[in-house]
């Protein structure tokens, strides 16, 4: 009976060490210097953002929450990860002086994949979306882009979980950076 009590106590300690209990709401997106330099150097026309939603056929929970954080959770700022991506894009365009609500160029998107795993050993995260650019009712760009990350992930939940959350939220900036770097995107919106 004595050894069972000690075992139970040790198992509880171990469980507390590897898991965590953080519930975090992503803050409102802000522009980043690296994306600002990319889009300012692209010589493109101003654009506006359109609808960003979950891709057809995907489970609705993909847009609302992510698992793989050892019991913790991260939720989007306005209730939708697709909307979080739109807001990130808009923040970057506005900071670059390239957002124009009256522009006939509209950038819309569909969230395809959103995942994070704070596994012991190596953590991983992935964000994938389809970006569509329409200009005066003509589709000029349609491409799926992906951003992913992997990092050494601690056994200790108190270290691994915040790091996984940071890595996942940083993917939104990274994915917009991929869009800005994409030569087809730059060509589609290039100033004539």
């Amino acid at each position, binding site marked *: 009976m004595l050894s069972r009590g000690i075992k139970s106590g040790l198992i*509880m300690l171990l469980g*507390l060490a590897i898991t965590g209990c953080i519930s975090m709401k992503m803050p409102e*997106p802000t522009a980043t210097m690296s994306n600002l330099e990319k889009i300012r*150097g692209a010589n493109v026309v101003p654009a506006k953002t359109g609808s960003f939603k979950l891709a057809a056929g995907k489970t609705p929970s993909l847009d609302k929450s992510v698992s793989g954080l050892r019991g913790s959770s991260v939720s989007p700022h306005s209730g939708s990860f697709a909307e979080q991506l739109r807001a990130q894009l808009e923040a970057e365009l506005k900071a670059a002086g390239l957002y124009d609500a009256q522009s006939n160029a509209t950038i819309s998107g569909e969230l395809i994949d959103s995942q994070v795993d704070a596994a012991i050993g190596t953590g991983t995260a992935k964000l994938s979306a389809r970006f569509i650019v329409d200009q005066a009712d003509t589709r000029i760009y349609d491409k799926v882009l992906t951003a992913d990350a992997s990092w050494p992930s601690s056994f200790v939940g108190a270290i691994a979980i915040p790091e996984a959350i940071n890595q996942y939220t940083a993917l939104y900036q990274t994915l917009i950076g991929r869009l800005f770097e994409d030569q087809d995107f730059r060509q589609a919106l290039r100033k004539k």
Partner: protein
Amino acid sequence: MNNKFQYFQFIKLTIASIFLLMLTGCATMYVDGTTKEIKASEYKVQQEKQAVMLVFEFQTKGVANAQATKYLKDKIVDQVKNSGIFSEVSLNPVAGNRVLSITLNNVPLSDDAFSKGFVTGLTFGLAGSSVSDGYVCTARYLGGDQQQL
């Protein structure tokens, strides 16, 4: 039997104490005094001040930390405004398209910070330890033509 029961009670009490210690903390923090603070009145300021858009990002080990960025942004904006170096400090594009980027990267300077803390906690502070945290600040100033000034 009575001794075994008392021993079991002692083990439960020890485990409960460790849980409580994990919830609290008992640490003293020191800021490195070698980085001196310079008063804004001692800055060399150009006579013709320019407006600037401020972009701030806090990173943890090189990865953007959105929560910390949100927490510190207003303080950074106030500090840049109060420096008196710029005619206007805005979070939006300004006339002239100048951009001041400030990145603060929190990097660990101690190895195995967690294991050191764990040992200190497990020994109820009898085995003390110290860990160091580093901050690398990178400031970039871009002109309207993307030229780094």
